[in-house]
């Protein structure tokens, strides 16, 4: 059985549809890379799944429970967490406090502040620092750590590497994929090569719809690029 299932999911910004009648399944334990051009609906899709954006139609089922109408904090309690675009740390709180906010209502699970600091040694020295003073990579790590502290079964990460130096990106990916108690992952990644390298499966969005969905082993980079720009459709038309 799939961990998360979306059926004809629709989400809008005002009158503009950003996600159109989308069907989606995520299996327990896999790593899914979500790719697509700017405006393809990746962020809106993740935000809608996490409950930060209202669904205009369709259904989201998480582990057998219909969560379409549930607010974000209840989805977190069920084990669905999002690292939002732009990290969105609480700027006036320290790294420690940012993590503590998430830990206070966390599901029972392996992740505690101590285990997080062990898994992300780079953060250990920053505990007392205000989030607003961190570098981009440090903020991204803190945001991922904060989401992990809720002990998610499914972690959605928006724009893993946006604005980070290549070294920082390596660090973030190492931390994410090498975790001992790794949750199921859905990652938005602009870097196609990295997406195909890390993920088990790739989903490419185009104008709010799924243009391509394939195991990373069975698809070439060119095929994904075609779907990315909608070339195959244009050729057909």
């Amino acid at each position, binding site marked *: 059985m799939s961990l998360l299932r979306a059926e004809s999911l629709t989400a809008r910004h005002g009158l503009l549809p950003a996600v159109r009648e989308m069907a989606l399944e995520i299996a327990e334990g896999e790593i899914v890379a979500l790719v697509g051009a700017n405006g393809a609906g990746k962020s809106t899709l993740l935000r809608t799944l*996490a*409950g*930060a954006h209202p669904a205009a139609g369709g259904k989201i089922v998480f582990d057998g429970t219909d969560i379409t109408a549930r*607010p*974000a*904090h*209840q989805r*977190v*309690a069920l084990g669905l*967490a*999002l690292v*939002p675009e732009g990290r*969105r*740390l*609480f*700027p*006036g*709180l320290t790294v420690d*406090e*940012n993590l*503590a*906010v*998430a830990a*206070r*209502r*966390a599901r029972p699970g392996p992740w505690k502040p101590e285990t997080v600091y062990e898994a992300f040694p780079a953060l250990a020295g920053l505990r007392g620092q205000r989030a607003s003073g961190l570098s981009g990579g440090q903020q991204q790590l803190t945001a991922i750590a*904060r*989401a992990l*502290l*809720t002990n998610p079964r499914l972690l959605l990460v928006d724009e893993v590497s946006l604005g980070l130096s290549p070294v920082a990106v390596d660090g973030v990916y190492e931390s994410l994929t090498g975790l001992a108690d790794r949750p199921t992952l859905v990652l938005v990644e602009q870097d196609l090569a990295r997406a195909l390298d890390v993920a088990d499966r790739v989903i490419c969005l185009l104008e709010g719809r799924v243009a391509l969905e394939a195991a990373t082993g069975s698809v070439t980079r060119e095929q994904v690029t075609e779907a990315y720009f909608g070339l195959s459709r244009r050729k057909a038309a």
Partner: protein
Amino acid sequence: MSWVNAILQGVFLGGLYALFACGLSLMFGVMRIINLAHGDLAVLGAFLVWWVATQFGVAPVVAAAFALPVMLALGYLLQVTVLTRSLRSGELTPLLTTFGLAIVIQNTLLLVFSPDVRSLGTASPWLTTGSWRITDELTVPYLGLVILLVAVAVLGGLHLVLQHTGFGREMRAAAQDPDTAGLVGVPATAVYARATAIAVGTATIAGTFLALHSTIDPASGPVQLIFAFEAVVIGGLGSLRGTLIGGLVLGVAQTLGAQIDPQYSILAGHLVFLIVLASPQGRLFWRRREAVA
């Protein structure tokens, strides 16, 4: 010497204003809304205390102990029924709904309690009339000192709770970014409701002291809202420490004004407020801080 005494009495009066301002400052800090019914909720709480005290013949402290949980619950309910919805419909809506609420509270009190003025002053005369004489012209009223101590305890205690407890951290997190708070499992609506409950609770304490110190009537609320707001602005907005100082400055300004001519008392407070507003950065000497602290 009488000027020194005026300043001293102003500090005590300022304690009362700081108590009124506490809840206003908290709600503004956490939700960025000004509750226009704040003064009327304080007067409502004071009327409840007065009613319990006279109905059952108990001391004001006992009556307040009964009224406080009721008012806390009322604040919580107010948030989940009216204010949550108001917040969702835009920046201006909370102003309109709380203004409507203010009118409803004032006129309901008028229907239930008549326009007569009431006071708790006679209920515990030793507290309300007693004082220490330091010198011929310098006195420390018991009640003034109690109000000041309670104000420092309430504002200081709340400050510590916000800074150092999980409860406070959640409130600061929800204040800075309610959407993201939801994404890490914090129900912003419930956190906001707690903030409003605390605000209405502290307003009730302030209203009770007002009824002990002087009198209340159904129309007393708006003036207290204005004083509370002046204290918050003089104190630099959004910080409880600033609010305490703002209250004291306002109290001293009023008693110094009254020292010149009793008619100038309230006007002097308005003047200080307007000076702060007109000052280059809209503050007296404190830094504006965006976060709740």
